[in-house]
């Protein structure tokens, strides 16, 4: 029964990710006084890309053609670890936060390899930039998540969230810092403004788009889907670690349905905030990204410090 729910949850993750992207786009269009495409436009785009024949460059090796499948499946595996609507599922019991970061890391590794494989200037540039950003973002993310781990004395996400949930409303200074750090890391890792602009193909500024420039057809569809999945994954992490109320603790149909409604509401709200921040903030110069991420790291560090100093027992 629990495995069944875990599979359904992963399926929901994969199915809802394009919807979140569509909603985010809708919010941004509304704020910028443009007419928004339908909420289901990302699904149509994916469908169109899947139907098309992929065009592969002459010099592409097997890395280039296999990479989209590896990236997509690694991201789906990462998503299966994160509790979306229910806690205490077998998938989240077998893997903890560090495994989650590992899955995302391996997906990124193959993406960077694929960018380098084709041998174009843009691919190499995008890969090098992506690795620079992620090498700075990953420690900050681990710092933020370790704050939760220290508060709940576990690295397992599900157990940690249960701990936060059972504690009731406790104002923790360390969680405030960790929340801000995780938001900053999310923006950097999912390639949103001010770090990277997902809608641009302007040669000097792109990071993610530069790596996948040579992809087409179903390969491109898988990579786009994986990046939408990643955005949703980070959103769920923020929503469920810091505001876990509503998530199902038992596996009855009613609580699961309520959990689904709660997470949809939380993600929709989060996307509104992301849309606002993307509308008011301008894209940052690449050389200032390091300052931004070191600030995120500093916040994570302060979160850990304030946990040890302000909250731990003496």
């Amino acid at each position, binding site marked *: 029964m629990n495995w069944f729910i875990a599979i359904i949850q992963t399926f929901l993750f994969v199915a809802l990710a394009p919807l979140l992207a569509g909603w985010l786009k809708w919010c941004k269009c509304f704020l910028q006084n443009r007419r928004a495409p339908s909420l289901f436009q990302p699904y149509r785009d994916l469908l169109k890309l899947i139907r098309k024949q992929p065009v592969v460059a002459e010099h592409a090796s097997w890395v280039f053609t296999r990479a989209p499948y590896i990236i997509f499946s690694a991201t789906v595996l990462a998503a299966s670890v994160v509790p979306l609507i229910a806690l205490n599922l077998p998938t989240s019991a077998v893997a903890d936060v560090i495994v989650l970061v590992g899955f995302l890391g391996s997906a990124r590794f193959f993406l960077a390899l694929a960018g380098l494989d084709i041998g174009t200037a843009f691919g190499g540039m995008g890969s090098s930039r992506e690795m620079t950003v992620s090498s700075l973002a990953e420690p900050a993310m681990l710092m933020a998540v370790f704050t939760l781990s220290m508060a709940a004395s576990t690295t397992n996400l599900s157990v940690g969230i249960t701990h936060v949930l059972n504690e009731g409303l406790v104002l923790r200074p360390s969680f405030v810092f960790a929340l801000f750090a995780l938001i900053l890391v999310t923006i950097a890792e999912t390639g949103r403004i001010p770090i990277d602009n997902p809608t641009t193909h302007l040669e000097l500024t792109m990071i993610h788009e530069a790596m996948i420039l040579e992809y087409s057809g179903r390969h491109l569809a898988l990579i786009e889907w994986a990046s939408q999945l990643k955005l949703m994954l980070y959103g769920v992490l923020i929503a469920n670690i810091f505001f876990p109320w509503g998530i199902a603790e038992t596996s009855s149909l009613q609580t699961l349905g309520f959990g689904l409604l709660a997470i949809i509401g939380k993600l929709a709200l989060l996307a509104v905030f992301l849309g606002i921040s993307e509308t008011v903030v301008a894209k940052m110069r690449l050389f200032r990204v390091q300052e931004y991420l070191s600030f995120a790291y500093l916040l994570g560090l302060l979160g850990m410090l304030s946990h040890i100093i302000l*909250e731990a027992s003496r």
Partner: protein
Amino acid sequence: MNIEQQDFYTQAILSLAALVGLTSFLMLGQGRLLRLIFVFALQGFLLSFTTALAGFSLDNPHLYISAVLTLLLKVIFIPWMLRREVILMNTQRDIETLKNKTALMMGGAGLMVFSYYVLHPIVQTTSPVMLNALAVSLSVVLLGMLLMITHRQAVAHVVGFMSIENGLFFAAIVATNGMPMVVELGVAFDVLVAAVLFGIFFFHIRTSIDSLDVDRLNRLHEVDK
């Protein structure tokens, strides 16, 4: 004693202390003057909120007066004055280049740890809450000093100085459960006087070197080096 066992007031005070510490860090890394002043106003607001919360929780009505005074002075009057000064000098679009920002931030984190280390012996004699609040206040004071050392604009120096005062005020509110009214009025009056004095000081620097960048005061040597 774990944080889950503290009452809600203590949790709120600790969270506010953390946020006050955060605003100090934000000020430290801020190169734009108008944004610096905005963060300073935010810190003042947090301070005023803390005071009001203490007044509510300890049932001590005169703390409300203090909260309103803080609100008027540190959130409205002083930021307004500094903002006017910046716009008058037409420096609102300048970005001050801070040398080695990352090292600066890490130095700030080091100062925070240092202030905990210094205050740790106090834990034997008092409650942990007071230790935390005092430690955050001390680090706000030290970060304010670091801000004054690293920034070159006179306006940033004033903000640093006022944030030192904020740190002391926060310590006083949390540690003493509200000072006597006379002391609070005296402090508020001092801040007001300081603000006026800084206004005059700005005026003099501006008329003598036509800028608020204090590094340029070095050029006032009688002989060239």
